[in-house]
């Protein structure tokens, strides 16, 4: 018998739920109520979409990468959804713009967030500056070192970046610390979770705000190619950019969807879906990297944004139903894919997004002529320069 009920708040199949301390439950109810109102409020939608357009620069382009097509064997047609061209350099801003409007509706004057690669932290600091709210970002000490430029950006916009020294000092520990802050300050503070993880209603809210990626990409590819893509590829850490682009194609049975987890190196991996099993971490029931005693295992990836032992509950459901196929790419493959795109296209992708590119290369090799592969280029790689230089010297 499972003690995880199939029916309950915020389920994706059996996954999801609200596994948090009682102190937070009223805060989650408030968020759910305010989000339900906002979702059906035309004024909210107008304001959100105006910000996406005028502040973040949406719609982001869909770019046919002909140089990389040749690099990948010349058969497949490769389109990149350029989320890296958003303001702040990644898809994370989509979610943050929506959530800061929710914070304002709830009258919360302070934002907290966790960050791994720093992209979500930067996006949160950005919307906090825009809205005039106080902002605290928790970041693992290890990540502060490897993503130093993003720490400087957050601080420049007035956010307080708090180093997290517990555990592996990466995203998992930063998330735990952000939750502890929220438990303490729930009356005044809105917690902007950066991915489709956490307790209900977060996985739904973040998915809905990121769905703009898939909506745009679907229209753009129909206009550009005259048909739907054969395959869509996105990297999966918590899984928000993937859910965002997949959501545009979930109902199209002919479109194959691929989520790419971090296969890491001999130091470990971050493949919760491919190598983990269901469990509870940070508020939801989902696939999880854990040991035989139910302790959460440290993740490893060269991409700080994928360096997380859990994954969003909707991905767990999509894995079990078979609608999305999940696979892994190693650190080395991601680094090579990053270098290829930089050299061939003049685009430096984030190491996270490079996982999707490396997998697209595998799909493209031996593909029948004319196969269309759509890759979500979720962020840009400027933040990774120190990791990239370090890897080049090894």
């Amino acid at each position, binding site marked *: 018998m499972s003690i*995880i009920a199939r029916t*309950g708040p915020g389920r994706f199949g059996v996954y999801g739920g609200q596994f*948090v*301390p009682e102190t937070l439950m009223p805060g989650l109810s408030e968020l759910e109520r305010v989000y339900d109102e906002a979702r059906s409020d035309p004024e909210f939608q107008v304001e959100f979409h105006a910000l996406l357009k005028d502040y973040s620069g949406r719609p982001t382009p869909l770019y046919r990468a002909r140089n990389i097509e040749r690099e990948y064997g010349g058969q497949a047609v490769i389109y990149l959804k350029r989320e890296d061209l958003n303001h702040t350099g990644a898809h994370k801003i989509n979610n943050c713009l929506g959530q800061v409007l929710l914070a304002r509706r709830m009258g919360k004057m302070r934002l907290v967030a966790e960050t791994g690669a720093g992209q979500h932290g930067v996006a949160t600091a950005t919307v906090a500056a825009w809205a005039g709210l106080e902002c605290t970002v928790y970041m693992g000490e290890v990540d502060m070192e490897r993503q130093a430029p993003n720490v400087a950006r957050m601080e420049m916009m007035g956010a307080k970046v708090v180093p997290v020294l517990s555990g592996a000092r990466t995203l998992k520990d930063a998330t735990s610390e952000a939750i502890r802050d929220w438990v*303490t*300050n729930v009356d005044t503070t809105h917690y902007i979770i950066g991915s489709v993880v956490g307790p209900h209603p977060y996985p739904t809210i973040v998915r809905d705000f990121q769905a703009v990626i898939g909506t745009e990409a679907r229209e753009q590819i129909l206009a550009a190619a005259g048909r739907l893509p054969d395959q869509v590829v996105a990297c999966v850490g918590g899984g928000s950019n993937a859910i965002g682009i997949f959501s545009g194609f979930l109902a199209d049975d002919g479109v194959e969807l691929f989520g790419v987890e971090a296969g890491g190196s001999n130091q470990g991996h971050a493949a919760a879906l491919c190598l983990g099993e269901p469990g509870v971490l940070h508020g939801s029931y989902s696939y999880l990297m854990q040991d035989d*005693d139910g302790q*959460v295992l440290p993740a490893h990836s060269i991409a700080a944004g994928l360096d997380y032992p859990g994954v969003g509950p909707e991905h767990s459901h999509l894995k079990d139903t078979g609608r999305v196929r999940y696979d892994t790419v190693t650190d080395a493959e991601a680094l090579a894919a990053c270098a290829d795109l930089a050299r061939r296209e003049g685009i430096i992708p984030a190491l996270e997004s490079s996982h999707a590119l490396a997998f697209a290369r595998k799909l493209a090799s031996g593909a029948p002529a004319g196969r269309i592969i759509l890759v979500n280029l979720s962020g840009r790689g400027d933040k990774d320069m120190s990791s990239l230089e370090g890897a080049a010297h090894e």
Partner: protein
Amino acid sequence: MSEAALRLDAFARERRDTGGKLLVPFLTAGYPDREGFSLLLEAVAASGCKVLEIGMPFSDPVADGPVIQAASQQALDRGVTMRRVLAMAAEARERHGLQVILMGYLNPVLKFGPEKFAAACTEAGVSGLIVPDLPHEESAPLRALMAERGVALIELLAPTTGTGRMASLGRSARGFLYLVSTTGVTGAGGPGDLTDTVARVRAACDQPVCVGFGISDPGTAARVCRLADGAVIGSALLRRVAEAADPTAAAAAVKEFLTEVRAAIAAQGESS
């Protein structure tokens, strides 16, 4: 219902009805080490406490502050597993006659297997279970499973819990209600005035009420016990263990501290 849950229900109620107060110390299983933990059990029993909360270490304790986080990590580093936690619970019950409440996060229980865990709790003589990341909305299946085995799943209430919600939590609660004193994690700043909150709990629920989180000294414990039926002390106790030179000194410090707290609670009982 089995003897163990009846034991905790009846014990807590009898205490309340006779005006006696419940002091519930919290120890992390296997902390500071296995032998040191046994010494702490002796110290708890020698101080006159009857109920003990034992923390099952978890890698990601989101409801806990730095002191209990560090204790959990140290216990995990020394190889504490769920099996070993249950053996330590049995030791507390059998050797010292303590009523044992286990406190731990959901994932290790899921991984152990909830049915197997419930059976093992009964075997070890455990009376109650607290799962801080299992709120009322998600707790019914585990509560039923534990109740079949005679273990009370204790509900937590928080200052943010609305009165209507308190009533529905109270309807299903076993053992006693655990009132979280303040919004925050364990070991944070002490509670403010709880008069209104405790009054709201009393009005909505019938069970005895114990207050935990931030009860750091004898005076605070006594103040809390003027309103509620008991107090839980965790971080303040473990801090004394962490600061002690060795496990023997830690046990002495724990015994001394709990004796002081019990005296302070008793003194306020006489003066009120």
